[in-house]
């Protein structure tokens, strides 16, 4: 669910290194950076699009995406961590859902809009077992912030909308949760797998020549992350 662009990714690496320099000395490493695969599954539900010249039953759905996962984890205590989870912002595609055609313009299944998501999640995680254990099941709760940018109505979207269309999607802030399992090979290296869920709700406003159509969208993203981590 969390996305990040290349510039942000490079900045994150720098951030991690710099933060690492300033970390306190301890027997147990306090910092952990992770990189891996982020698979996001949307369980989107939207209200039917409302506005002028919109037939009944015109709706939307979002395509699932996979992207690069990057996380920074800070050890807080022997059982608690804080995680900043992000991903390279993929191009999320929104498809038309509803009538096969609007008039004679194809709609159902057409990619009508794309957007990139900047969507960091901050989590407080609890590890169940002592730090000496190789296996580390954990759960976490936190907050997701999602900002939608590079919003584009595609040619198919413009055709369905009736002309060049400007899309507005306000940012979303919502709760997030995760469960996962880590396996430590040694003091430095580990692998992690987790399942996450967040609430990402927004209101889409489409402006075509001043004619406004709107819908509430609940993306309901769920994610699977598989990553490798290095502690220092």
């Amino acid at each position: 669910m969390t996305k990040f662009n290349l510039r942000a990714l490079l900045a994150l690496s720098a951030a991690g290194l710099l933060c690492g320099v300033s970390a306190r000395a301890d027997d147990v490493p306090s910092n952990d950076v992770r990189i891996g695969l982020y698979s996001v599954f949307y369980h989107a539900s939207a209200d039917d699009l409302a506005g002028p010249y919109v037939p009944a039953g015109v709706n939307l759905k979002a395509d699932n995406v996979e992207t690069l996962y990057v996380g920074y984890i800070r050890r807080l205590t022997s059982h608690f961590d804080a995680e900043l989870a992000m991903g390279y912002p993929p191009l999320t595609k929104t498809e038309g859902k509803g009538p096969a055609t609007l008039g004679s313009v194809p709609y159902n299944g057409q990619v009508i809009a794309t957007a990139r998501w900047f969507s960091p999640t901050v989590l407080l995680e609890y590890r169940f077992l002592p730090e000496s254990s190789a296996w580390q099941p954990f759960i976490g709760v936190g907050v997701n912030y999602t900002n939608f940018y590079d919003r584009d109505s595609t040619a198919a979207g413009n055709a369905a909308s009736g002309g060049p269309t400007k899309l507005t999607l306000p940012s979303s802030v919502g709760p997030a949760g995760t469960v996962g399992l880590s396996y430590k090979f040694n003091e430095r290296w580990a692998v992690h797998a987790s399942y996450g869920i967040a609430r990402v709700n927004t209101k889409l406003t489409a402006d075509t020549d001043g004619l406004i159509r709107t819908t509430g969208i609940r993306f309901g993203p769920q994610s699977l992350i598989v990553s490798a981590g290095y502690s220092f």
Partner: protein
Amino acid sequence: MFKFIGLGCVVLGAALLGACGGQSSTTGTAAASTAHGTLAESPPFRIASLSAAAFGAELSANATSAGLLQITGAPICGVDFYYLKFWTQGGAAVPEVTESSGALMVPTGAAPACSGARPIVLFAHGTQTDKTANMADITNPSNTEGVLVAAMFAAQGYIVVAPNYAGYDISTLGYHPFLNAVQQSGEMIDALAAARTALPGTFASATTDSGQLFITGYSQGGYVAIATLRAMQAAGLPVTAAAGLSGPYALEAFGDGLVFGAVDIGATVFAPLLTTSYQKAYGNIYTATTDVYSTTYAAGIDTLLPSSTPIDTIFATGLLPEQVVFDSTTPTVTIPGNALLSAELTAALAVPSSTTNPFTPLFDAGFGMPYLLNNSFRLAYALDAAQNPDGAVPTPTAGVPLAAVAPTQTFRLALYKNDLRTAWAPKVPTLLCGGDQDPTVFYSVNTGTMQAFWAGVPTVAVLDVNATPAGPFASAQAGFQQYQAEQLAYYESAAGGSLTPLQAEEQLVANYHANVAPFCAVAARGFFSQF
């Protein structure tokens, strides 16, 4: 919960902000200029896009449009329906700047007639009481005239431009310059200019303007079409051909007929639209609305139409009478020293009683209580008509000219100024079409008068769809007459309400004007196809 705060985190934050600043897609562009004829939104919004097959299927889906389909023929082309917004001028002496809207219908599809260089039909619609009416909104079932022109012209390969008129839809003018020749022809020309600007930027840019221009319109729009032809001809703008369909061209003669008792169907709607339009244009029709209207209806009538309230509700709530124009207690005229004229006018203003005139029952329905127009207004108009008679009524004179001397009664003078019998004749082929029993826009006083006015003008052809079928438009005539017979039988059938023969006849009269429309339109299409 995060303990690390340092330079790296600041860098990170800056990078994230950078990521948020991506470009978004944009909508159409609003014009910076409000000069008349400017396209206000580019590209125009497409309300719908229908393939030929989809449009044909939609037309087949209900009985009324299926009947229309038989007249128009099956669509050859798909049609894109664009919502054209443009700047134009109002009807005041110092014209207001106002945004107006309309339809740009563009043929699409693979058939040869549906793309490439195609002719434009500039269409003027008939009188609308619904302020929200939008010719481009093909999704609205009540947009029957939009469907008619789409099926008749656009689906057969003509690009259609049809303004909604100032005062309707998005226009904030506050009134409609009804039958104001200068404003309405100007708006038609503005809509055409905006449509020509818009066309290359539409989804249907494969369809282009061939340069051929046909002007037509029905009822009020028939008048507007011929007024537009006159204006374009005067301005040296090219027109290929024109067709006025059931239009009130000879406004002074038509008005004189009304005042002398020939009350047409729709007069209670036309009268306030016309009075308000001319009051805005000339400022001298009345000082107070009670100068023209009865006290029953005078309050608020200057802003009553067009309205977003359905006309039936306006009638039902007593804001406007459905039929009664004049007081059934007609005036007794006393002109000092002229007993003969006094007697003639008194008789002429009495409730019509001729048993030989088929319109008499209709005319009688125009008299009653409460009534719309007061007797003092009627009498002043009648006196002016008696002193400066129109050449077409009551007895046509050679050339059926306007009154020899300009009227002095201000409303009649306004009709005189907007009457199309001015010193001109069409230089391009022009068809005038109507039905001779039309109870809404009388045929003889309008189409018949123009036919006489332009007698000997070789570019002018006249078609009465109710005449014995003959000549190049015999199929339109036969089609209309067959349709009328079928309608009459339908009204008497169980499905049509089991009306008595008299009731069925009355129903047919009520619908006559609307029934003529598709047959005159198909005649116009046939006329245009020759060029």
